[in-house]
């Protein structure tokens, strides 16, 4: 990293577009003094950056008269960007600019003494020059992208994406909250349009996945957090205990034979002929489909002392003491295929769902199709909960075809029964029309245009009485039914909401993932994260599979190539480090590992550049690049305490850039007067401040040191605030032994909105320090 050490030649420009600074500060004197400073090669006041100014800077750069630039005053982020871009064309590295906004330090207001303000500006710029001398050209680091895709949700959409990726030789993490894969489709009886067994198609994909060493499947798992960015996501997942070893269990089922507890099967509990039990035991094969094949225990149903399965298992696979486990998965891209949930039909009160056992949802009806009981009169109500502003204000798009499919299947088994379908419109887009024509041609299948107003019990015989107006004929229709199927709609799934919240992904008005439906339907609006299947909106199986492949293709670009890390990462000086490991202990993101010689080395893909390692190292062996200990020490050393009146205390503040700094900046922009002798340094995290810097400051005669970080629980580096609080507390204790007031080192919490408190804080600290008298190290 050490470049050839050409002497620093600093171009120093004081930006005063409106002349405001000149009114408050004697800029002439400032320029005169600064131009004499070592390493300052050019110094002037500028009113704008155009009209030939940048051209002249370019010439100086080209001629080698300048090699770094110090910009004093307030530049907008836009101006900073322009300046960097213009000059980088001339070969000036963007890290060779130093920015010194004197206004945010409280200078530039009319009112306070001109001489005092002039002195403060001098001091601030000298500090900046001290730092600017040491800044270096830096290039971003390029790291290889993580070559895996993480898919959330193993429904039909997730499974197909996984199997296609694996086929391309890509690594896949598939995360599913249930004990097995397959999603909703696995519980369907037949799939329209071809009226085939859905398990057949799913099994085909599962077989491909079973044999692949590229797939890592995590069932019973939920996502708990997301870190990193595109090409380098870190996803935290929590795995609930399965109580059966996935490696050892061979699925023989001997455990279930002895298990004394039969549990309700959620998917069939509503069916009229269902005894609410399906023979499913507390230990059972994974649902909906047995991938992985290892059994699973629903522990909440187990009698406390029962160990029957443990005893019966020939492979010793059952472990009833298992606990949840956490893990972090790294992936270059993420695909969410979190699917849909059935709309809760009990909310559509007029149809009596939940009140009468023979009112069932279309999803429950799927279970009836195989083996229906004797039914003479069956009704279907379309759009139950859909296309209704009180419920789902959209068309669920599959339920017309679903009811037609179900009527067709039932009719095959019950040829003499009568089917009445109440509808608003029959929506069978594309080839589904064929299904409609087929069902229409059947005997005793009646389509009634109009939705029933009431569903009531028909006397005591357990049948249902249903009344509706046929809007085509204008006649009232009254029917007595054995079974009523509500064509319930597709609502966004709870799992979709969970992920949207965790990943901060926008959702549309209806609660599905937001995407640009015409052009980029697969984009989640966050780079590297894609969405596919019914978590994007109602769609059928074919559409789900198609959409998920689009997501998959886009995801591919993020698992190849490289990604860039800002060059402002920590660097460990091995000549200084004696492997005490505190950096490793204290890094809030566990980014350190040992290199081959046993030195701590930050994993740059994980590192958040918070600087806590720099703050903690007792040997000052670690520095964030562009924010090195030496640069900051030079800044501190430039505060010439001796040139300020001895009675006036001097405060040096270290402000966390995330919150405290913004509070101070806002305070400076308000009417409040900031005491002249307060100088602050913006730091990446309060925890990045090393005690050696505090010792420097105290030994140079600074009277009080303020470190301001976020409140507990709000620290952007998890616990950087607590780490620095403890460390600076240790130093304060030492001061006490040295017969120096420990209050000369203070840690405070400041939130982003605390600008008023910041002003109070520095003023009251000033008063306290005045009462204490000068720092004994002041000369």
């Amino acid at each position: 990293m050490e470049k050839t050490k050409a002497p620093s030649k600093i171009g120093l420009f004081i930006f005063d577009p409106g002349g405001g600074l000149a009114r408050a500060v004697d800029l002439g004197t400032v320029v005169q003094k600064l131009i004499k400073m070592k390493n300052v090669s050019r110094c002037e006041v500028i009113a704008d950056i155009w009209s030939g100014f940048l051209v002249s800077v370019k010439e100086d750069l080209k001629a080698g008269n300048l090699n770094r630039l110090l910009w004093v005053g307030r530049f907008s982020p836009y101006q900073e960007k322009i300046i960097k871009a213009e000059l980088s064309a001339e070969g000036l590295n963007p890290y060779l600019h130093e920015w010194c906004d004197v206004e945010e330090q409280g200078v530039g207001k009319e009112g306070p003494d001109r001489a005092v303000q002039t002195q403060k500006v001098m001091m601030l710029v000298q500090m900046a020059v001290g730092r600017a001398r040491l800044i270096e050209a830096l290039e971003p680091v390029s790291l290889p992208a993580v070559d895996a895709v993480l898919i959330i949700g193993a429904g039909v959409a997730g499974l197909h994406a996984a199997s296609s990726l694996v086929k391309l030789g890509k690594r896949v993490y598939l995360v599913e909250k249930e004990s097995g894969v397959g999603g909703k489709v696995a519980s369907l009886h037949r799939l329209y349009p071809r009226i085939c067994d859905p398990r057949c198609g799913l099994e085909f994909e599962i077989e491909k996945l079973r044999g692949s060493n590229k797939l890592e499947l995590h069932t019973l798992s939920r996502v708990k957090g997301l870190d990193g960015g595109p090409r380098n996501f870190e996803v935290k997942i929590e795995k609930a205990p399965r109580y059966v070893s996935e490696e050892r269990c061979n699925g023989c089922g001997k455990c279930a034979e002895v298990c004394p507890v039969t549990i309700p099967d959620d998917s069939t509990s509503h069916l009229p002929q269902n005894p609410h039990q399906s023979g499913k035991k507390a230990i059972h094969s994974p649902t909906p489909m047995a991938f992985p094949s290892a059994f699973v225990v629903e522990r909440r149903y187990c009698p406390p002392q029962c160990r029957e399965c443990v005893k019966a298992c020939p492979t010793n696979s059952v472990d009833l003491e298992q606990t949840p486990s956490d893990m972090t998965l790294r992936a270059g891209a993420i695909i969410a295929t979190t699917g849909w949930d059935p709309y809760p039909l009990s909310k559509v009160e007029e149809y009596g769902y939940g009140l009468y056992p023979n009112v069932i949802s279309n999803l429950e009806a799927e279970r009836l199709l195989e083996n229906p009981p004797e039914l003479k009169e069956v009704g279907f109500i379309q759009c139950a909960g859909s296309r209704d502003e009180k419920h789902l204000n959209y068309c669920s798009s599959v339920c017309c075809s679903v009811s037609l499919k179900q009527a067709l299947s039932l009719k095959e088994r019950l040829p003499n029964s009568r089917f009445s379908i109440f509808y608003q419109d029959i929506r069978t887009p594309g080839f589904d029309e064929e299904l409609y024509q087929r069902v229409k041609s059947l005997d005793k299948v009646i389509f009634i245009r109009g939705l029933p107003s009431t569903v009531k019990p028909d006397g005591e015989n357990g049948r249902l009485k249903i009344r509706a107006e046929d809007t085509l004929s204008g006649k009232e229709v009254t029917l007595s039914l054995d079974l009523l199927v509500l064509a319930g709609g597709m609502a966004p799934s709870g799992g979709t909401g969970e992920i949207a919240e965790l990943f901060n992904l926008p959702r549309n008005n209806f609660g599905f993932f937001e995407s640009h439906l015409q052009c980029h339907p697969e984009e989640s609006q966050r780079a590297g994260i894609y969405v596919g299947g019914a978590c994007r909106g109602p769609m059928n199986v074919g559409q789900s599979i198609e959409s998920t492949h689009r997501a998959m293709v886009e995801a591919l670009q993020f698992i190849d190539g490289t990604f860039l890390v800002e060059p402002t990462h920590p660097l460990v000086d091995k000549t200084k480090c004696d492997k005490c490991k505190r950096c490793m202990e204290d890094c809030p993101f566990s980014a350190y590992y040992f290199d081959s010689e046993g030195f701590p080395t930050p994993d740059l893909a994980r590192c958040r550049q918070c600087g806590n390692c720099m703050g903690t190292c007792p040997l000052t062996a670690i520095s964030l690049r562009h924010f090195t200990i030496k640069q900051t020490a030079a800044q501190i050393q430039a505060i010439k305490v001796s040139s300020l009146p001895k009675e006036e205390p001097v405060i040096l503040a270290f402000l966390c850039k995330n919150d405290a700094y913004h509070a101070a900046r806002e305070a400076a922009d308000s009417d409040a007067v900031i005491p002249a002798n307060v100088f602050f340094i913006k730091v990446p995290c309060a925890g990045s401040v090393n005690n050696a810097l505090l010792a420097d400051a105290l030994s140079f005669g600074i009277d009080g040191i303020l470190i301001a970080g976020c409140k507990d629980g709000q620290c952007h580096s998890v616990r950087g605030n607590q780490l620095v609080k403890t460390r600076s507390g240790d130093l304060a204790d030492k001061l006490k032994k040295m017969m120096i007031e420990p209050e000369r080192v203070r840690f405070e919490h400041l939130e982003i909105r605390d600008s008023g408190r910041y002003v109070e804080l520095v003023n009251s600290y000033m008063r306290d320090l005045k009462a204490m008298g000068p720092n004994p190290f002041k000369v």
Partner: protein
Amino acid sequence: MPPKVDREKCDGCKAEKESLCEQVCPGDLMHLGEDQKAFCRMPRDCWDCMSCIKACPKGALETRIPYQLGYHVARLIPMMGTNTITWTCIDLNGKVERYQYRNRGSDD
């Protein structure tokens, strides 16, 4: 006189094999006890070189000034900056003297 260890403050350098004071002691006198707190194994061999005191990141060590220099209650306390050391010297009458040095020969 050998260093005194503030057992509240010493964190045993977080259970490292060799604590910082141990690494730095020229006579290899500092050690971690069973309780993961540092102690001086052979107090009579201590040279009062102050190396451990300067090295301890927790401020857990304090020297006891040898009787040749000052009686009990007299103290000598270093504070390490990035490139500076200050010394605070408190004699048995409570008189305080302070010295500030910039280190030379550092890797500038």
